[in-house]
């Protein structure tokens, strides 16, 4: 809790650097739209325990951090929160005070929580001075910021010398007949002085002990723009058209605008902020005291989560500890761990009982930057925290990019607009008509298949150590390939019994009219489709020299086995295979048969997904439903092309035998792992190091965007207006809206993710202790962790930094007799079922 205590604010003196640092720590961390990566929305509080973090975040910043009390109670009455689980939670938290707390939890009324601290100081402008400072300052501030950071919407760009925001403003103000300021004083301050934050605050607030609180109030009145500025300050490369800016500059300019607004508003002069003494602590970040209501909410949240976990754990416990040995395997498939792939794998396995599927993060262990042909920049295609040293370039792409005249800047010119509206205008009417009655692909849409040309070539093998570009090595050496191939295969336990064909299936998404498109692609590829990675790892695994090295290390891949890269589009449920021409005639024959299975599985998958789409008729046969699902990706009017990670709640790290016979309702990430290959937890550490931030980040972003869609989410996307290509805002004068829009999270159930690991508890404990960042996720309860002993199938819950035995309360597991029937009739969350 370093940032929350011991800051110098208590002593009354103002430390600018410390306060700026604290602000950056607490502001939203969402990058510009094109680089959208899921992360824990309350990342600033991750160093404390989940419920403490929630309490503090709520009391300080006014976030809602759980469902409403009434909502929990109605879930309880509806049976979604199991009474036995609730009792178990209360008992384990309150022991002998069970009756008392049960009453409090289930029926006692509670007064609403007191007002958050944020905003309380600056509210005095309105209360004491009768001036609404925010309405006077925000619209102009946002407008200027957006003009400065704009990536290509405006036709005229902000005149800038590249030396920073304030410098650009000085250049403008100094050489202009007009001014952004209404009065003379603020302009003079900007032009003639260095403008330290403290000096400006002295004019506005005077009392130095209030400065920190004032700045928090000010910046959290528009967390969207402030967060964006601090992200761009930290990673300037996130903008293709670079802009230099810092949070300090934003604050200085905002303070100047405030002084100016007050000068203009009070012609006769004004006094610094008048404050009334309140009982609040002087440090806005001080610990928020715990109340009974906090405890009640925590009990409800635990009860909601365990009502879901418990039947799942009970079901897992009942699974056979060894998978039946498959005789002649038809094929094997490697998929992303993504929860959206969970059902796809189930359908493939049910259509072909002789196949095997595996899950692993969708960058398949190959980390690099990708440069498409003619691309002016590199895209990172591996998890966010990794800093790749390799570059893969594409050549021979035959796809053509089409232009969309409706985005032509000329349509905004006076005369250009005159011509456009009399010509193109009528064509727009036809296009609108077409898209509404017969949606089809257009340059407007984002399509996963366009990430890489299907028939293009990639520079996968490094030719010489000198073959470098901008500090990156082009391609991998044979040794580097072998290393990655070995890591991948060992981590998922696929080191023997290879089928003749092994598919490596990355995934991506397609959608139209969706500024959040990057949030739909593969999270393990930094929000991009996984097609290049799939092809690259396959090329490595098919490389004869690599195979030789692998054989030397004990992984013998038969000569006839071939690896095939593919891309699964999770929105359209379509698949594309790469490099099919290099297959042997026999394998090509097999591939044709397998491709037909994939096609059928995709249609079934589309049908399963359609049960959540109220406007799609799930009763139709799978092929018909599939057509309707495909249309969603290209329909302008469809704000939910797919439901993405909504309802995610589980991550199973273990052999497929644990989950192959279970229906998990697309709620589980699945990471293959064989404890037998990994007695000392080496591969487990790699898996958890990636799974905790990726799955945890996704899960918690959905969690918080759901429980507070207004402050931690982006609200409804329907009124969104694209600002400078970097973010969305409501209307014309609004703040940026980080987080997920309501259309993405509305069907989500806010439960923290439970990671189930098939390994011995000692090994797991020793593994997660090795790395403090990973440890924090579990020890601070941002993720729940349960271990299944692979031999006895006993369960152990990770609690208070150790493993304690867990005995499930659920005693039966229903069998899903007819899944297709369920898909046709049920739209809500389904319980775990055994598959027959």
């Amino acid at each position, binding site marked *: 809790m370093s940032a929350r205590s011991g800051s110098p604010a208590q002593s009354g003196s103002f430390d600018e650097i410390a306060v700026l640092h604290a602000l950056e720590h607490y502001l939203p961390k969402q990058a510009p*739209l094109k680089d959208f990566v899921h992360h824990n929305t309350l990342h600033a509080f991750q160093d404390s325990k989940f419920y403490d973090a929630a309490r503090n975040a709520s009391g300080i910043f*006014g*976030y809602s951090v759980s469902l409403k009390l009434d909502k929990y109670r109605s879930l309880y009455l509806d049976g979604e929160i199991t009474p036995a689980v609730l009792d178990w939670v209360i008992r384990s938290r309150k022991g002998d005070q069970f009756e008392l707390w049960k009453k409090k939890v289930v029926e006692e009324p509670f007064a609403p*929580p007191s007002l958050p601290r944020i905003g309380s100081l600056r509210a005095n402008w309105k209360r004491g001075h009768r001036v609404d400072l925010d309405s006077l300052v925000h*619209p102009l501030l946002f*407008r200027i910021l957006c003009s400065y950071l704009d*990536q290509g*919407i405006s036709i*005229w*760009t*902000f*005149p800038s010398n590249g030396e920073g925001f304030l410098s650009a403003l000085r250049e403008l103000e100094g050489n*202009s007949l007009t*001014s*952004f300021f209404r009065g003379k004083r603020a302009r003079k301050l900007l032009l003639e002085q260095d403008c330290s934050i403290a000096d400006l605050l002295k004019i506005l607030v005077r009392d130095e002990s209030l400065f920190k609180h004032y700045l928090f109030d000010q910046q959290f009145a528009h967390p969207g723009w402030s967060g964006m500025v601090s992200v761009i300050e930290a990673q300037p490369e996130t903008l*293709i*058209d670079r802009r230099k800016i810092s949070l300090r500059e934003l604050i200085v300019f905002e303070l100047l605008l405030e002084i100016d607004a007050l000068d203009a508003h009070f012609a006769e002069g004004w006094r610094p902020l008048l404050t009334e003494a309140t009982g609040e602590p002087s440090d806005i970040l001080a610990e928020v005291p715990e109340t009974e209501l906090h405890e009640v909410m925590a009990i409800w949240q635990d009860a909601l989560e365990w009502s879901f976990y418990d039947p799942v754990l009970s079901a897992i416990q009942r699974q056979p500890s060894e998978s039946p040995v498959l005789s002649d395997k038809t094929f094997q498939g490697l998929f992303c761990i993504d929860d959206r792939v969970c059902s796809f794998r189930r359908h493939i396995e049910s259509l072909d009982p002789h196949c095997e599927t595996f899950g692993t993060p969708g960058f398949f262990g190959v980390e690099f930057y990708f440069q498409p042909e*003619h691309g*002016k920049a590199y895209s990172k295609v591996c998890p966010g925290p990794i800093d790749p040293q390799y570059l893969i370039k594409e050549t021979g792409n035959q796809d053509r*990019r089409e232009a*969309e005249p*409706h985005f032509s800047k000329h349509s*905004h010119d*006076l005369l250009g*607009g005159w011509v456009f*509206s*009399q*010509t*193109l*205008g009528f064509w727009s*009417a036809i*296009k*609108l008509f077409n898209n*509404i009655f017969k949606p089809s692909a257009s340059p407007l*849409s984002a399509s996963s298949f366009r990430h890489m040309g299907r028939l293009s070539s990639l520079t996968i093998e490094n030719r010489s150590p000198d073959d470098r570009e901008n500090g990156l090595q082009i391609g991998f050496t044979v040794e580097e390939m072998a290393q990655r191939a070995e890591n991948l295969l060992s981590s998922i336990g696929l080191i023997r019994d290879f089928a003749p064909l092994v598919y490596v299936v990355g995934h991506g998404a397609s959608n139209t*009219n*969706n500024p959040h*498109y990057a949030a739909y692609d593969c999270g393990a590829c930094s929000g991009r489709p996984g097609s290049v990675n799939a092809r690259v790892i396959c090329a490595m695994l098919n490389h004869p020299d690599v195979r030789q090295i692998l054989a030397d290390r004990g992984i013998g891949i038969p000569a006839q086995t071939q690896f095939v890269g593919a891309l699964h589009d999770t929105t359209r449920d379509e698949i594309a295979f790469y490099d099919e021409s290099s297959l042997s005639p026999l394998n090509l024959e097999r591939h044709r048969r397998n491709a037909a299975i994939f096609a059928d599985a995709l249609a079934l998958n589309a049908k399963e997904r359609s049960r959540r789409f*109220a*406007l799609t008729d799930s009763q139709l046969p799978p092929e018909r439903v599939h057509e309707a699902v495909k249309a969603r990706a290209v329909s*302008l*009017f469809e*704000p*939910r092309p797919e439901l993405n990670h909504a309802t995610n709640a589980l991550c199973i790290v273990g052999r497929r035998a644990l989950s192959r016979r279970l229906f998990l309702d697309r709620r589980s990430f699945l990471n293959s792992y064989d404890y037998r290959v990994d007695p000392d937890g080496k591969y487990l550490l790699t898996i958890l190091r990636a799974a905790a931030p990726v799955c945890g980040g996704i899960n918690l972003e959905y969690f918080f965007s759901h429980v*507070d869609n*207004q402050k931690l989410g982006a*609200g409804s996307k*329907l*009124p969104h*207006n*694209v*600002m400078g290509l970097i973010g969305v*805002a*409501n*209307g*014309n*004068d*609004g*703040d940026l809206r980080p987080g997920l829009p309501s259309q993405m999270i*509305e069907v989500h159930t806010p439960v923290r993710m439970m990671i189930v690991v098939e390994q011995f508890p000692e090994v797991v404990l020793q593994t997660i202790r090795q790395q403090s960042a990973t440890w924090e996720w579990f020890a601070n309860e941002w993720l729940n962790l349960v271990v299944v002993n692979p031999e006895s199938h006993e369960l152990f819950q990770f609690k208070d930094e150790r493993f304690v035995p867990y005995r499930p309360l659920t005693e039966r597991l229903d069998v899903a007799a007819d899944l297709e029937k369920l898909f046709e009739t049920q739209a809500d969350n389904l319980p775990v079922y055994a598959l027959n």
Partner: protein
Amino acid sequence: MAALLQIFIFLPLLGFLVSLTLPERDEARISRTAFVTVGAHLAGFGLFLLYWAISGFPTLELKEVDLFRAGDYEFFIDFLFDRITATYVFVGAFLTFMVLLYSRHYMHREAGYKRFFSTVLFFYAGYNMVVFSGNMETMFTGWEVLGITSFLLIAFYRDRYLPVKNAVKVFSIYRIGDIGLLLAMWMMHHLFDENVTFHMLENHAFVLEHLQSHAFVGALIALMILVAAAAKSAQLPFSSWLPRAMEGPTPSSAIFYGSLSVHIGVFLLLRSAPFWRDQLFVCLVIGLLGFATSVVASVIARSQSAIKSQIAYASIAQIGLIFIEIAAGFDTLALVHFAGNAFLRTYQLLVSPSVVTYLIREQFYNFVPRVHKVGGMLPKKLVYSLYMLSVREFNLDAFMYRYLWNPMKRLGNRLDFLTFWRVIGIFVPLYLLGLYFVYNRETLPGTITAVLPLVFSLVAAVLVLKSFTERKRARMTWLLAVMTHFWIALAISFNENFDFSESYLYLSGVAIAGVVGFLCLRRLKLLEGDIDLDRFHGHSWRHPKIAFVFLLCCLCATGFPISPTFVGEDLMFAHIQEGQVGLAFLTSFSFIIVGLSIIRIYARVFLGPHAKSVYEMAYKSS
């Protein structure tokens, strides 16, 4: 054939009424009702167009009903159909149909699904009323519907601050336009000594004959029409409302502010063109206004970094050009331009979220560091100044505040001494006294009766000003607004040939609405305590029913065409005589401000973030 016209007016109205009866959550039936209504409208209109074409494109006129007749005063609904109407109906029906189909999926699961479709249908009814209108009165009826539905759609997300604030802002600009229309109606009435129809205006000789002796009045009427058209079509100096209206769901922004609503000013100009086309001065003014707007708006469009604002200003610039085309007499070109611009901007707005995918991709493949250039060869100082002005939208948004609302507020603040009881204590006895003299007019000398209307209308103006600027007590504000109507009625009653009973028609709606509205506020105050007007309370969050009833009261009390007050308002104007410019001005001023004041009460008390649910509300800035 003309009799068919009424179908096209009543069909959307019927759809609207049906939609009101449907349950909130029944998306399928709500959207189907809208879809069938507008679909039938579009199809029926297609057939009608064919029939009309076969008949040789005649101009059709239909005098529908006499709503009220007293002496030489006649309030009637009148319809007209010619190629202007044909174009507007076709574009309107097509786009509304498309956007409704679009919204069926787009709005799925949105809170307010029903509200959205009902409001769009009501808007569509108003739109048809305007474009089919055959006289000013009919047009004004539809015009009011457009105003209120725009308000409701901009404030669709009523739990957030900015949509509500901007809805009030746009509504107030619309009210300025309404003044123009009201005064134009009044002057035309006196110019022609009867309620003229647009069809009559096409009679060249008839218009010239009246204009000859009253050139000045003619110009004044045209300018008033221009004010109304400029306000509605976001021309200078009103332009800044258009981007701010884009607060609702994208399809509603696309259809209203991209296409239909914003081109209604153009329609008004086209419709009234036969009246002013021979006045060279007026043509020049319209042309110059269009020119100035198109230059300024296209400069502003160049620096917009938000996609919807950029489209909005580009559209305003085109409408400026359309104004020039109309002023120059190229009506057909203007109609083609209108249709093209409407389609183009609607589509651009609908696909605006795609701009990220598209431009980022373009940039990825074609990026060249941008040269920071503005304006080409001009000297740096000028270039920078132009850029800064353009970013600040030429201060247009501040302009209305600085020169209109703020002075009014300052004036109103001088009236702070008026407390609730003082208002009752002073103005009620005074009113009774005035009423006594109305019935006993002969007891007063003629000179006094002559000035009394002005005095009383001044009192009305003072009351309404107070009501508009009151920052505290909601109930008193309401009372003041209602009393304004009574004083206006009293003022007009002193005119000759006036029977006070005519005022009953006018005041009946106001009185009932006044009482019910007062009870709503009283009940709310009991339930919630604080309902002061110095901030938004958002009480519709917990009391949607009271909010709805109060909204109806507001509509009645503002003379919205659901109560007899609407006809009464026009009637009052008809009784203001030709020479009473002061009275006409004060009365129209009071009408406009009373509407604003009442909408302000509604917005402050019922809309905005719910003050008591801090944890569930969005940031004020979002």
